């Protein structure tokens, strides 16, 4: 028996079948978590993004265009959720300290030695501080490319942008990161 496609599962969600949630989540939740975590830098917030993405996928399933790809649609919801959470956090904490409490935590990558863990944490903080200066959409585009390795076309499709906008945003994002990380590298 063949696996139902993403579109099949979305069709079932649109018909109110909540049992379709689990197989759809199984296919996409790790990817969406990684995107949200790279963007927001906090595991709790990233989990909230994943949760709300699938809540929205269910509640908005009837509005989903049946011909559209499911993965980019979910990505767009997740990115918008991440931006919303980021804005709320910034409002709550004040812009200057918005991400100060957002140092990487609960790192779930391997089990490195204490030295490597310290080094990794330092790098994480530097990257965090560099990503913080990017405008919201620019940061999302950079995360989708550099962390998830989506093609430029996939990013344009997911964020409903022109290819030119994606390219120029990436160029600007890398230019800013270059400036920001210059001192760290030298």
């Amino acid at each position, binding site marked *: 028996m063949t696996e139902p496609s993403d579109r099949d599962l979305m069709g079932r969600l649109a018909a109110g079948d909540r049992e379709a949630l689990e197989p759809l989540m199984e296919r996409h939740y790790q990817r969406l978590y990684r995107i949200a975590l790279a963007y927001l830098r906090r595991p709790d917030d990233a989990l909230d993004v994943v949760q709300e993405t699938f809540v929205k996928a269910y509640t908005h399933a009837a509005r989903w265009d049946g011909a559209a790809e499911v993965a980019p649609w979910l990505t767009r919801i997740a990115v918008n959720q991440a931006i919303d959470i980021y804005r709320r956090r910034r409002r709550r904490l004040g812009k200057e300290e918005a991400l100060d409490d957002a140092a990487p935590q609960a790192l779930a990558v391997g089990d490195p030695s204490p030295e490597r863990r310290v080094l990794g944490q330092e790098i994480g903080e530097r990257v965090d501080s560099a990503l913080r200066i990017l405008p919201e959409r620019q940061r999302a585009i950079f995360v989708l490319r550099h962390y998830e390795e989506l*093609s430029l076309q996939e990013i344009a499709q997911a964020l409903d942008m022109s290819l*030119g906008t994606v390219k120029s945003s990436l160029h600007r994002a890398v230019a800013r990161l270059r400036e920001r990380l210059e001192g760290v590298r030298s």
Partner: protein
Amino acid sequence: MTFRHGRWRRRTTLLALGALDEAEAARTRAHLGACAACARELTESRAALELVRQDPLRGAEPPVPLGALVARVRARLEEAPAGGRVWRPFLAGAGLLAGLVLAAVVSRALLPTAPPAAPSPAASMAAAASEAGPVADSADAIRRLEHTLERERAAHYLSDAQDVLVTVVSAPQRCARRRNAVEVGPEAERSRELLARRRLFVETDAPSTVVARDVLDDVEEMLREVAALDACARPQDLEAIRGEIARRRLLMKIDLVTRELQG
């Protein structure tokens, strides 16, 4: 730096990101042989990207199993079947408050009441205080909520407008349909959408967004210029807009005002 060279710089960045197709990557590499500045930029971009690649959050797995997440989603759907956002109790509370105030106003208007006997001045004042107190508080809360939403809408609008203007300012693509022209069709279309959105949703004269009035006006003016461009625009038209954006230091002002709006 020429406009043409700006395109090479962008391609250099995309090469560092591994985002060029083979043909374009080959052309860019050939250019790098003759352009020391671009070659240096490539080296620096690669070093910065390599550092980001070592981000310990890259490739992290969710700290909870799938089953737990599915349970969370189901619980959320149980508690908010209409898609409400439970993590924003403030909004929910304000909505309830608004409903109560509306109900009070409607019931006052609809319920038949006997003509009141002339009360004493003291009794009138006491009654006015006891009736107006909660309603005034409620109205105040709604007003605060409206202010917050107005500021949020204005900040969101400015952030989206900034994306468009930054694209126009930085490095638009050459137009494939016309020689010596640049492709700005998507930016022109997006500008028209944003102008329509501003008319519908962003209040310039609201007290909550008055701080943004000048920047909103400048942004509108620039978006109108972009919206009026042909999809394949003349570089000099684009250059004029770019110069105007720079002269007004508009991108920096948008950043500052957006932060201000976001509190």
